[in-house]
């Protein structure tokens, strides 16, 4: 009987492994462990592609439709909290979400499942607006495209302003 149970367990395990998506698994693994002292939650993993784990294929939940991190100044690593990220989808529907203390923002798919392409604006203060000049075609993770230093395949991270003097309240 034990042998039968073992055989069944082996088959189940093999099927489970065979059904896994190695590309997705590798993408999750490539993100590495959590940073010291920051567990899973709204402030974890700033700058990483949120939807790798929160895209519906696991391992994390909830599923997001859009998520990212906004930095204050181009080329610098200070986060931009309290920035309103306004997203408009191809149907003309609009949602706004505010960045938290590490610059992260996200929209759970159960709250809004936008239809791409999307256009995005960053709002800070009463008047400051920085609009993304191109559309988001399909990927809800900002940092799938916005990562590292500017290169042929990335404009670099999402930032609020190019120059500190452009920020609201700058003298």
């Amino acid at each position, binding site marked *: 009987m034990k042998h039968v149970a073992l055989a069944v367990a082996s088959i189940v395990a093999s099927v489970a492994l065979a059904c896994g998506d190695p590309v997705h698994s590798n993408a999750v693994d490539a993100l590495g462990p959590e940073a010291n002292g920051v567990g899973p939650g709204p402030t974890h993993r700033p700058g990483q592609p949120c939807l790798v784990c929160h895209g519906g294929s696991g391992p994390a939940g909830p599923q997001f439709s859009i998520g990212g991190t906004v930095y204050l100044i181009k080329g610098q690593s200070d986060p931009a909290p309290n920035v309103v990220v306004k997203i408009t989808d191809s149907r003309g529907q609009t949602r706004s979400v505010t960045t938290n203390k590490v610059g992260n923002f996200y929209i759970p798919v159960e709250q809004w499942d936008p*239809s791409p392409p999307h256009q995005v604006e960053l709002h800070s203060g009463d008047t400051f607006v920085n609009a993304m*000049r191109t559309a988001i*075609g399909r990927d809800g993770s900002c940092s799938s*495209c916005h990562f590292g230093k500017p290169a042929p395949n990335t404009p670099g991270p999402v930032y609020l302003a190019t120059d500190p003097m452009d920020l609201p309240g700058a003298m």
Partner: protein
Amino acid sequence: MHTGALVYSVTASVVAIAFVACSSAPADSRIGVVAPDRAQFPPVGDLLTHRCGELDCHGNSQRNFKIYGCEGLRLDPAASPGCPSMLGPTATPTSDAEYDATYRSLVGLEPAVMSTVIHDKGKNPELLTFVRKARGDESHKGGALVVPGDDQDKCMTSWLAGQTDTDACARAVAPPTTP
């Protein structure tokens, strides 16, 4: 038959077979393609990079149909996404090499079908998968982006017909066109 004649006959046959075998198409031969006009492509390339060439769509070197341009993926290792119209004069505009790379990628997708379409002066553009996908007539992750007869469609199909409608192309990329 005399033994000498038999040997001669067999040898001649072998040589003839070898000659025929070696005279087939060379291994590095290429099929031809009746291609649309490269000189008229830049306005179409501008439309493609604007509408389809986002970094998370066809502005990606891993896609079959790769689109290069200043609104997305760059060819020059020293360049990054961003056009002068967006970022000012320090940004690098779409280069001729980028238009060329996009053109080659597009024409090379379905060279035989492209030849048929161009031979017929663009009469049946929907034979091309990229047209069907753009119109949403075929499964497309990016959805239906073009409506038959709109400026975007005119831009693409006029190029396939041999005379790019540059006015339609200009209107198609003039903001706001997306979403």
